[in-house]
């Protein structure tokens, strides 16, 4: 088991003091019949060990594509990474040969998805699918792989794991399937877990179970977590830092308390004002007028300007607002962030 880690540590460029994960100026485009869709348009992110970074945004903002680019599971074509780097401990994964990247992917960076039913293979038992990781990546025997799989299912608290190891995905409930997927992702003890809308398809009481489990496993393992979601309630509960995405860009990045307490980008602010609250009954909801832009035809200047209440002349002109560094650990892509944050 130590061999694989020694092997990974020996990849040229590995720097144990470099950030756990760092994404620089990432660009992904989809070449389609209707033109080139710039799904990810210059994204910067970083993640520290044991930290939870939430990527928050609505459909089509590029949050899932960013995650898939980090994992190296984009379908090419139509998707092409055209610029940028994804550094894991200093090594740029985008320039790593596929054979080595595959090892990093399984052993160091893992991912779970929204829809466990389509992420799991319906024709193999869950025991076989988890065991496969140990057999392929660790060269374990069938018996050992099975024993480890049962341990893992126990850890994600599947009742009577020993009896359920031979069951197929369809025999589990939605919440239990999500647990199976988490078990698979954590099998090889990754340092980074990317969770793409892990609880969106689940009922709220099951969501609470799954988020609690993820938090616990994260603490035990000192694992960095990238949580991709549109749910501002979940984010407020678990995130340390937040990157808000709109039309392929991170428009605001800040520690969780700052985002909710004093949002500095008009989009973040409008989102927060447009959600109904459980803890009090508000008046009319604030509305963000219009629709997000088509990614084949993003507005000039700031992509949010046609929907923005603060927009003025400079917002409609190229170049798009740069990432203003407004406080330690806080950036915002808005020329008028002063006005928005009420500074």
């Amino acid at each position, binding site marked *: 088991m130590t061999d694989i880690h020694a092997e990974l540590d020996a990849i040229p460029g590995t720097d144990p003091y470099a950030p756990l994960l760092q994404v620089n100026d990432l660009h992904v485009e989809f070449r389609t019949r209707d033109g080139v869709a710039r799904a990810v348009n210059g994204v910067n992110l970083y993640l520290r060990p044991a930290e939870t970074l939430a990527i928050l945004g609505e459909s089509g903002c590029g949050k899932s594509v960013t995650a898939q680019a980090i994992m190296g599971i984009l379908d090419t074509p139509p998707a092409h990474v055209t610029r940028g780097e994804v550094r894991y401990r200093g090594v740029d994964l985008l320039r790593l040969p596929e054979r080595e990247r595959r090892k990093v992917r399984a052993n160091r960076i893992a991912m779970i998805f929204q829809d466990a039913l389509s992420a799991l293979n319906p024709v193999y038992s869950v025991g076989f699918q988890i065991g496969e990781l140990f057999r392929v990546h660790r060269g374990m025997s069938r018996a050992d792989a099975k024993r480890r799989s049962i341990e893992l299912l126990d850890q994600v608290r599947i009742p009577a794991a020993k009896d359920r190891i031979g069951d197929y995905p369809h025999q589990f409930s939605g919440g239990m399937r999500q647990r199976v997927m988490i078990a698979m992702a954590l099998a090889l003890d990754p340092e980074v877990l990317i969770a793409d809308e892990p609880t969106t398809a689940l009922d709220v009481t099951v969501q*609470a179970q799954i988020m609690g489990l993820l938090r616990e496993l994260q603490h035990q393992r000192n694992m960095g977590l990238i949580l991709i979601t549109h749910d501002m309630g979940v984010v407020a509960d678990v995130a340390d830092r937040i990157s808000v995405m709109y039309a392929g860009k991170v428009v605001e990045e800040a520690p969780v308390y700052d985002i909710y307490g004093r949002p500095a980008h008009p989009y973040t602010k409008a989102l927060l004002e447009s959600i109904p609250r*459980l803890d009090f009954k508000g008046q009319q909801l604030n509305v963000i007028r219009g629709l997000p832009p088509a990614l084949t035809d993003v507005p000039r200047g700031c992509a949010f300007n046609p929907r923005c209440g603060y927009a003025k002349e400079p917002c409609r002109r190229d170049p798009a607002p740069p990432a203003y560094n407004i406080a330690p650990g806080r950036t915002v892509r808005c020329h008028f962030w002063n006005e928005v944050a009420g500074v």
Partner: protein
Amino acid sequence: MTDVVLETKGLVKHFKAVQAVDGVDVKLRRGETLGIVGESGCGKSTLAKLLVGLEKPTAGSIMVRGQEMTGLRGGDLRRARRHIQMVMQDPYTSLNPRMTVGDIIGEPYEIHSDVVPRANRARAVQELLEIVGLSPDHINRYPHQFSGGQRQRIGIARALALRPEIIVCDEPVSALDVSIQAQVINLLESLQREFGLSYIFIAHDLSVVRHISNRVAVMYLGRIVETGVDSQIYERPTHPYTQALLSAVPVPDPRLRGHRRQIVLEGDVPSPADPPSGCRFHTRCFMAQPRCAEQDPILAIRERSDHPSACHYAEPRYLMA
């Protein structure tokens, strides 16, 4: 009691062994919104279908504006139905992709031909488009030319076509992005004020339901377990299931982290084909006593609760510390 526009008594729908809806009493007054919340499989969508007549009840009664709906047939049923219309969850599959928007919204007039004379129908459809915030010029477009939020507006226009008094909304905003959700919720609220509509608003999102509802009913395994005005349900819940459900909803305020009592339920909802004995919630309840496995608690006001709750030990428990 003349202001009650919809009332069900002992409403039951069984699909073979599956007890999807098992004895539901609801009352809806003119101009109010009754929210119905519950998780997958609690029977809320089956209830919606029963109310608009898309499913026939196994037992029980549904009164719309004082008229019994169950047992009606043919023209009588058709005429009664026009007072209660429905908005569906999925704006992608609930509109026929091969029909124009004008045909979709105008289709109710084909069935109820006496509502608007044929010559005025195009005008009526254009008015409906305008009412829901779409351009009347788009009458000849197809559903795929609209975004999700706009499609939901088309669904709402169709539901309004027969000028109903009651609209049953089954998860009308859950397929939409948050910024679009707010637009549709505000539209539903302004239509209610303008036309004096009464809504049954079914959703799994407790925050959305609180926002829009005057009264709320909580469902679990085919039954209503607690009902009351919104402050009774959200601030003084007395049924352990309601309490667990509310405590599980994440609140968009990081300052509350660690300050809220979270009740995490163990396991999954039991099968509605084989519900537990006694109180249906007792297998997952953190308050359960031996009595709960034997005696089925009725939905009633008890000593320590000011609103109906189906728990022997109903009393308010506060969730904010």
